[in-house]
C-alpha cells in the first residue's frame, strides 16, 4: 500500500492524543512536561509531512521545514525555562506534585 499523507497525519494525531492523555492523567509536573513535548513533536511531524507531500515539481516547498526548524529552537527555549521554573517551585514547596501546587486560587 502506498503510504499517503493521511497515514503520517494519523500518526501525528495519535501522538498528539497520547500526549494530551498524559497531560490530563499525570500528576507529576515533570511527566506532564514531557507529554507536552510529545504533543509538540506530533505537530512537527504533521508539518514536515505536509511540506513533503505538497511539493510541486520544479519548486520545492520549504515552508514546513523552516517552520519545524523554528519550532525545535523554540521548544528548546521553552524546556529550559519551564524546567527552571519547576526547580524554583520545588525549592519553594519541596514537591513537584501538581495537586500540591495550588496557591493561585480564589
Amino acid at each position, binding site marked *: 500500500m502506498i503510504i499517503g499523507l493521511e497515514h503520517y497525519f494519523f500518526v501525528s494525531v495519535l501522538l498528539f492524543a497520547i500526549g494530551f492523555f498524559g497531560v*490530563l492523567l499525570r500528576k507529576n509536573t515533570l511527566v*506532564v512536561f514531557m507529554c507536552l513535548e510529545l504533543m509538540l513533536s506530533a505537530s512537527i511531524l504533521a508539518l514536515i509531512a505536509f511540506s513533503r507531500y505538497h511539493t510541486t515539481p520544479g519548486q520545492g516547498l520549504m515552508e514546513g521545514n523552516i517552520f519545524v526548524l523554528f519550532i525545535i529552537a523554540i521548544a528548546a527555549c521553552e524546556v529550559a525555562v519551564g524546567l527552571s521554573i519547576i526547580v524554583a517551585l520545588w525549592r519553594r514547596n519541596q514537591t513537584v506534585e501538581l*495537586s500540591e501546587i*495550588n496557591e493561585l486560587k*480564589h
Partner: protein
Amino acid sequence: MDLGTVLSVILLAPLVAAGLIWILARQRAALAMTLSLGAAATILCLSLWLFFAGWDGSAFEISTEWLTLGSLTLDVGFLLNDLSALMLFIVAFVGFWIHLFSVGYMNDDKARGRFFGGLSIFMFSMLGIVLANNLFMMFIFWELVGFSSYMLIGHYLDTDEAAQASKKAFIVNRVGDFGFLIGIIITYWTFGTVNFNELREVVGTQPQLVTTLMGLLLFCGVLGKSAQMPLHVWLPDAMAGPTPISALIHAATMVAAGVYFLGRSFFLFTEEALHIVAWVGVVTAVSAALWAFAQRDIKKILAYSTLSQLGYMVAGFGLGSLYGLHHGDAHNALYYGIGASMFHLTTHAFFKALLFLGSGSVIHACHHEQDIFKMGGLWKKMPLTTLTFAAGVIAIAGVPFIAAGFFSKDAILYVAMKSSQPAFYLLTGTALLTALYMGRLFFIAFLGKPNSASAEHAHESPWTIVLPLLVLAVFSIGGGYMIMYPVTLQEVMGHWVPHPHGKDHTTMIIISAVASIIGLVLARIIYGAGAATDKVEKTLPPVFAISRSRFYFDEIYGYYVKKVQDRLADVVAFLDTLFISGVLVRGSAAVAGLLGVTARRLHTGSVSTYVWWFFAGLVLFGAYAGGFFDGIIQ
C-alpha cells in the same frame, strides 16, 4: 449708542455686579454695597437717558437665536414698546431708591454681601421679564425671579420662619408656573411661535384660534406670581424677609410681574377668560381687605394691603378689557385693560414701596419691633417718616386729587361701573375698607403716645433711609399727573387709561371722596390714636375671628399637604426604595456580583482543572470548525 446695546447693558449690569460680588465681595460689605448700588444707578441713568433722549417711542425689537432643539428654536431678545418702557421705568426708579434704602437699613446685618448679591440677581431677573420678547425667555426669567425671591426671603438664615416662608413662596409659585408652562406649550402648539409680536399678528388674522383654556392656563402663572386667590398664601409669610425685599419684590416689582404679563399677552384672552380674570381679582381684593383688620404686625398689614391692591390691578385688567371690547370706539379701546391695570401698578409701586420703606424706617428705629400696638407716638420722634407715611396712606386711600392712588383707583372703579355692577359695588366697598385698615395702621402706630420702651427710644433714621422716603412721597402724591413722567411714557399713562367724562366724572370723584375720607375718619373714631389694644377684638369678637381666620386657606393647604400629599409621597418613596433602589440598582449590582463570585470559583488553583477546561474549549472549537454550530450562529 444703539438701543440694543443700551438694553443689553441695562440687563447685564446687575448680573455683572452679582458675579463680582460673588467672586470678590462676599465678606466685604462695603464693596458689595457699592457694586450693587452702582449697578442700580447705571440702570436708572441708562433708562432715564432712553426715555429723555435715546428713544423716540416707537416699538423696538431685537433678538438672536439662542438654542435650537429640533424644530423648536428659543430666542433671546428685547422688546421695547410703551408697556415695557413704563415697567422699565418703575423697576429702575423704585429699584434704585430701594437699593439706597438698603444701604442704610442693613447696616448692622452680617451677611450684606449675600444680600446685595441677591438684590442684583433679582434686578437682573426682573429686567429680563420686563424686556423679554417671547414667552419662553419670559418664563426663564420668571423662574429666576422666583429663585431670587426664595433666596432673599430666606436671608435670615438663623430663623426657621424665614426658611419655611421661602420654601412656601417657591412651592406655591411653582404650582402656578406649572399651569403657566402648559399654557405656553399650548400657545406654541396652536400658533407655532412664542414671540409676542408674531403672536399678535397671527391672532389678528385668525382670532378664532385663541381659546379660553389657553388664556386661563397662562393666567395660572399670574395667580402664582401676583398672589391671587387661591395661590395667595405665600405673600404674607414672605414678610419674614428683610424689609427692603418686601418693598422691592413683594410690593413694587415682582408681584406686579403677573399684571405686566397680562398686559404683554392681552390678545390671548377671550371674553370668558377675561370675566374669570376680573372676578378672581375682585374676590382677592375683597378678601384680603377683610383679613387686614386682624393683623398686628405692621408688615403683615401691608402685605394684605398689597394682596388687595394686586386684586385691584387684575380686576382692572379684566374689567377694563371687557369695557374696551364692548364700548370701545376710540382706537385705544383695546388697551383700556392694560391702561387701567398698569396705571394702578405704577402708582401702587410708588406708594406701596413708600409704605414698606416707611415701616422699615420705623422697625429700624424701634429696634425691630413690628407690633403696631407696641408703637405709638412716633410722630414726635420721627417727623419725616410720619409725614411720608401719611402721604402713602393718603395715596392708598385714594383721597381725590392729592393722591396718585385716587386717579388709578378711579379708572378701575369707572370700568367696573361700566362692565359689571356687582364688581363695582364690591370694589367700592373694598376702597372703603382699604382706607379703614390703613387708617387703623397709621393712627395706632404713629399718633398718640408711645406704648413701649422701644417706641420711647425711637429717633429719626439716617439720610440714606429718609431720602428715598421723600422721593417716593413726592411721586405718591403727584404720580397721578402726567407731567411727572417722561413724554415717551405718557402714551400709556395718558391715552390708554379709560377716563370718565361728564356726569360720570363727577360721580366717580364723589364716590372716591366718600370712600376714602369716611374710611379714614371711621378708623380714627373706632380705633383711637395710639391705642394699645385692638378695640374691635374686644367689642366684636366674631367679626374679628372671621377676619383673623383668613378663610382658613393655610389650614386647608396644610391639611392637604399632610394628609394627602405626604401620604402619596410616602407611597412613591416606598416604590422607589423597593423597585428602583432595590430591584434595579441593587439588583443589577447583585447580578454583577453574582457573576463575579461565579467567575471566582473557576480559579481553583489546580492545574489539572485548567487542563480540563482547555479540553472543553478544544472540543467546542472543533465542533464549531466541523460545522456543528452552523445552524445556530449565522
